């Protein structure tokens, strides 16, 4: 533990800027994955254990599209839509068959697909790690603010994820689609009786959640190496985020992800050997004091 270093960081503008933006970047990517996970759980009441694999698919799709077209914008768009479509097909063919069943059955279906997708990635892209490299548009020196370092690509990432968070928030709270989704989440039987096609709602929400995971993978690919199984670690962190924020709450996912990002960023200075521990400790505290999470509702 190095409290002196942490206090010195709080007293330094450059350290504050660098560590805060670093935390925001980590948190924002985590938010995209966790938001999808939370959205699916909130509406469908299933825990999508293969959400990390969708993140991995997004990264590989973007890698391939970028190598073919040379356009990062197309790569991100194509990967997000591709994973969204994959999620739709997966939900219709497999996941929809285990709604309302024991959680172990859902876990089994998801786990089998984690293994299938990992092997598929190895067959298609190879077992060795891959790297896409930074698109030319972002190959420029970082911006200096108050002595702190702000990489241009990370500013772009923050911008995109803030936009996604706003659109998602607007969609769920201010639109008719959002009302339908919320109705289907709260009382699917009543929603169905009122003429809402809940099957379509479920498929749409699963596809949207998958799209968000794919988008996160595509956005991360210029700075993360690609390898089969890469979704596992982000899945664990996403679960921590959803537990902290509250299962089913997109706003909770945002707050939880940012908290985790900032805790890791500043923790690496103050508690370098206990950064991971802090995350789990934080989660445990939330579970004890507010088991439904910061923004979760009683089930």
């Amino acid at each position, binding site marked *: 533990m190095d409290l002196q270093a942490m206090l010195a960081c709080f007293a330094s503008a450059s350290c504050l800027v660098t560590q805060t933006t670093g935390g925001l970047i980590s948190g924002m990517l985590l938010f995209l994955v966790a938001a999808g996970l939370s959205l699916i759980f909130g509406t469908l009441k299933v825990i999508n254990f293969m959400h990390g694999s969708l993140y991995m698919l997004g990264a590989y799709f973007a890698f391939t599209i970028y190598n073919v077209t040379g356009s990062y914008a197309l790569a991100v768009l194509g990967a997000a839509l591709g994973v969204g479509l994959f999620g739709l097909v997966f939900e219709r063919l497999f996941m929809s068959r285990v709604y309302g069943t024991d959680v172990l059955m859902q876990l089994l279906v998801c786990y089998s697909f984690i293994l299938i997708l990992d092997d598929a990635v190895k067959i298609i892209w190879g077992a060795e790690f891959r790297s896409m490299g930074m698109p030319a548009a972002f190959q420029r020196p970082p911006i200096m603010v108050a002595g702190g370092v702000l990489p*241009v690509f990370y500013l772009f990432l923050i911008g995109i994820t803030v936009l996604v968070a706003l659109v998602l928030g607007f969609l769920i709270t201010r639109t008719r689609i959002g009302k339908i989704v919320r109705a289907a989440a709260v009382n699917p039987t009543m929603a169905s009786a009122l003429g809402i096609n809940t099957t379509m709602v479920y498929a749409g929400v699963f596809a949207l959640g998958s799209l968000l995971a794919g988008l996160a993978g595509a956005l991360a690919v210029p700075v993360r190496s690609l390898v089969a199984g890469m979704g596992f670690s982000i899945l664990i962190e996403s679960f921590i985020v959803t537990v902290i924020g509250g299962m089913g709450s997109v706003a909770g996912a945002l707050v939880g992800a940012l908290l985790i990002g900032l805790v890791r960023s500043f923790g690496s200075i103050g508690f370098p050997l206990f950064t991971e521990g802090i995350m789990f400790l934080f989660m445990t505290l939330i579970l004890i004091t507010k088991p439904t999470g910061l923004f979760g509702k009683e089930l």
Partner: protein
Amino acid sequence: MQDSRKEPKNRRKFIKAASAITAAAGIGFPFVSRAQNKPIRIGMPTILSGRVAQLGISSRNSVTTEVEKFNAAGGLGGRKIEIITRDSKGKPDEAANNTRQLINGDGCEIIIDAESSAGAFAVQEVIRELKVLCLHTNSETSSLSADPKIRVATAFRTARQGIHDAIVSATYAANVAKAKGLRTWMSCSPDYAYGRDNTSLFMQYLKRFQPDIEMVGEAWPKLFQADYTENITKILQAKPQALYSALWAGDLVSFVDQAGIYNLLGQTNMFAINMADYTTLTAVKNLPQGIHSSNRYIKTFPANAENAAWADDYKARYGDYPTNWSWENAVAMNFIVSAIRKTNSTDSAKLADAIRGMKLKTPFGADGTITMRPEDQTTVGYALGWGTTIPKEPYVPNVTPGDWKAIFEHESEWKKSLGYT
């Protein structure tokens, strides 16, 4: 009086018995003949899935090539080598189970342990019990062979050894530090046994060779961590003049990519011991110029035609250049083949006696040879060196070779200090 009704039954019994004897004879005699020609089974516990699958794949590739050469040359009196690989997925308990199964279940007479260090120590305990010849090909943790309590009579190591690398690395880094005036240092290595041991040894020798250096911080990312932002920003805050890293493979690629967008490598001198391996060098899309690295494997060091031809043949066959693990496994197979030919046997004790002290002519040796040092059953004399990267082939054009005389001197002191000798 004999019951005539029993006759047909007895006849049938006789015919059955005769058929059985004939069949047994027919099967039995060829069985003896097959025993003479039965393959020499070599078991290979390794990692073939997950983020370090390349370890197992590139190890298996080079072993396969050497086995094919042996078999094409007629094998051992007609006995061909058959390789059986098993995937531990990087789990030590599975590595131990697989080794046991390979020996007891599959009848393997020799083990090439191509596990990482975590698995190698588990395999070593199985070898201690079953006393089969074993060559550890990928574990670099020094104590595996240096510590007499861990050493096993039939187990050898053909992997490079941590202490050798630490001495050469620190000698090179101290010279650069002296020339460039690099006083403040930091480390960023993976938080597990290899990362900690490697970094600790490097720093220990660096301080010894260049006493005025100062450590200004440490960052310990998890193994296979995806996001290094927190570590990079921490390094930026500490502003070290030099950074040492034992990150490797995909982790090192991610770190270099992420450090690039912070321009970290423009502000510090990076010493990445595991950079100069083709899978890593080619995976980093915008490989920065001037990263200092040890030679994991590059075809231009040692600079000899056989080394370059070996790498080109490997690439032509498998599509990628070989890795550090490839040459270490090729050397293991060369030792095994030489011992089999020398003893005309596959008996583990005889093979171990033959390998102990054996000097092998190989393109990977600093002077064209690698020796299996008898006292601790580990290889010495392999090519070690450091240089700086350029973004295209040959990637590390000028490698400064390590001095084996200095390695032996410091290693001997190190062993004494730990009570190994």
